[in-house]
């Protein structure tokens, strides 16, 4: 039986193994090196073909129908349409600076930064659209009719607006961008819908936001015990105490802040996925903060203890993490599911699709 080793209680399942993935990852690495990186587009397609084919939704596997060639063509287009102008603008920037036109150089830099932010938004949208349009399940696919140019502007202004009140609007900008993006997406005949709210995650965000203050206050308190520490280290060079104190401080500061940041992100992701629907299906994401921390520490350990080679397994780990924590409840009326009518170019899916950034 095809699914004997997956958890059939859940709507989603993953039954890949790292032993199956390893030959793919290592040959990809080899070919990417000997082609000076050009093979990486085909490598991505191979990797995804494997990951998708070991993922189950209800009673059928997913299929990745994207090709390396279309990713490569997309990369060439992006290089031509954005990379080249970027190089030219940089030349102009240098020339302006050389001529002492600091005001113009500054203005151009600002335009470059804003344009960059817009493109990041556009690219994220396009990457999601591309992935949905290349995902097959029971012969149907997803996609969107909106090319995402509007979303690029939303991303631009909402990201900037989030930081104006000292960053307090970041949860709002994250959830509203999530909603906006997913409401444009569809799979088969149904659109996705999302109603993520900033309220439920705001407490966690405030924790992250205020943590530095609290940590500083706490460490200040600890600092008052410094004479005790000094007494313990008596006879030693006083700078040793200072260095130990500083290292301790940095460790605590970034350690705690990192954990709180993960706590916020896991809450955000639960809220975002949990308020997303497709047809009569309601999605949810079950990963707790601890699960995320384990993922990150596992990633770090894997990379460090293999002297970097383990890096090629990260995409596998992340996809598995995503699939085993993703849940869906509700009902699917298979008879109603028809093919997506969203636009899809046969060749290369347009431009930025392949500017494929963001989490796998």
């Amino acid at each position, binding site marked *: 039986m*095809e699914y004997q080793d997956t958890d059939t209680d859940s709507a989603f399942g993953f*039954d890949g193994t790292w032993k199956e993935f390893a030959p793919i990852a290592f*040959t990809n690495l*080899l*070919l*990417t*090196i*000997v*082609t*000076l*990186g*050009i*093979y*990486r587009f*085909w490598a991505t397609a*191979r990797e995804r*073909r494997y990951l998708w*084919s*070991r993922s189950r939704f209800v009673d*059928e*596997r997913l*299929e*990745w*129908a994207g090709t*390396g060639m279309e990713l490569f063509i997309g990369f060439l287009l992006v*290089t031509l349409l954005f*990379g080249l102008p970027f*190089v030219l603008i940089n*030349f102009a920037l*240098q*020339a302006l*600076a*050389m*001529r*002492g036109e*600091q005001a113009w150089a500054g203005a151009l830099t600002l335009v470059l930064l804003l344009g960059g932010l817009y493109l990041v938004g556009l690219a994220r949208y396009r990457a999601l659209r591309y992935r949905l349009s290349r995902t*097959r*399940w*029971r*012969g*149907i*696919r997803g996609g969107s009719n909106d090319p995402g140019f509007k979303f690029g502007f939303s991303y631009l202004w909402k990201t900037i607006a989030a930081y104006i009140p000292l960053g307090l609007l970041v949860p709002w900008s994250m959830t509203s961008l999530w909603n906006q993006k997913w409401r444009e997406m569809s799979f*088969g005949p149904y659109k996705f819908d999302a109603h993520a709210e900033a309220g439920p995650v705001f407490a966690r965000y405030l924790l992250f936001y205020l943590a530095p203050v609290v940590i500083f206050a706490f460490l200040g308190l600890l600092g008052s015990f410094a004479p005790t520490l000094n007494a313990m280290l008596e006879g030693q060079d006083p700078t040793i105490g200072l260095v130990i104190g500083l290292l301790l401080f940095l460790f605590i500061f970034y350690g705690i802040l990192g954990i709180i940041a993960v706590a916020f992100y896991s809450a955000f992701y639960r809220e975002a996925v949990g308020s997303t629907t497709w047809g009569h299906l309601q999605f949810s994401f079950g990963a707790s903060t601890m699960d995320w921390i384990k993922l990150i520490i596992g990633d770090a350990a894997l990379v460090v203890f293999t002297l970097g080679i383990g890096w090629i397994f990260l995409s596998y780990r992340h996809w598995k993490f995503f699939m085993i924590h993703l849940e869906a409840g509700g009902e699917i009326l*298979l*008879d109603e*599911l*028809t*093919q997506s009518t969203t636009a899809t170019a*046969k060749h290369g899916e347009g431009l930025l699709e392949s500017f494929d950034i963001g989490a796998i």
Partner: protein
Amino acid sequence: MTEPSFRTPAHWYDGKTAIRREGLAVWDGAGGLRLEEEGEPPVTVDLARLRYQETRRHEIVYSAADEADFRLVMPADMPPGLAAKMPAKAEYGSWIDRIGLGRAAVGFAVVSAAAVALFVTLPEWLGPMVPQTWERRMGDAMVGDLGNRLCHTPAGDAALAKLLNEVDPARDKVRAGIANIDMVNAVALPGGQVLLFDGLVQEAESPEELAGILAHEVGHVRERHVMTAMLRQFGLSILSSGIGSNVGGGIITAASLSYSRDAEAEADVFARTQLARSDISPTGAARFFERKLEEAGGESENAVTGWIATHPASGNRARAFRESAVEGKTYPPVLTDAEFEALKTMCEEDDDVEDFDLF
């Protein structure tokens, strides 16, 4: 009824709905595969139009060339007679599948090594072939008119012109200027423009030191190093955009760095030739490098900062310049004391010189 070796249970999707069709896939004895489902009229697909899509754990998925989303899923252990009729599997991509992973990897490695070698050495050939007038126009577009950021006084300009005349053999002189920057540095800019920074002029203890450094920078211009470097930069940025990883980029940077050292050595040779031709003592330049060396605290290359860092080790350079002096010969001074003084005070006395706030 066909023989069992040409039939297998299968399921398929028509690509228009998500409804699963389940039944038998049977070779029709010619070029078709008949999909039979109970209670439905059979569908025949042209075997020539079937495409291999992917292999699952126990299944193989095929698509059809003319219907993008049609999917036929057959067991991986289908009868060999039938398997022989189905399109072949693909794994790495069509080229690599055809010639095999090992041979493809070796072939790609050879081509890549050749590409890197080409991109690193080609500028060496192309650089000198670019007409000087093009380079000048390009340089002017990049650097522009430095205008008021260069120091000018009548006496200083005359002294600089005299110095340049001694070290630049060509009738069409390079453009040289003293930039109002308080750093011990000198540069050859695109477009055949040479700048001595005021900080370096202040540091110089004799006009011969300045003559040596100026001759070195003129050497860069005359040997077309700037154009070559620009071409190399351009080529490498193309190559590294394809690489997208730091490892390959690091190797290439290291490769090009050795070429920049060669260029520095070449400029030094040019400088020594010019100094000898114009009867200027090379010990000035030697003394300058020796002082740099002392400041850096001995013969350690990495400790030396600024323009000297990308240059050959100061100790070797100092020796080469000192040894190029003709033994027992007394060289005439290249500038009078007054002229040297005019260079030293050029930036101070130029009232409307602007600050160079670029660095």
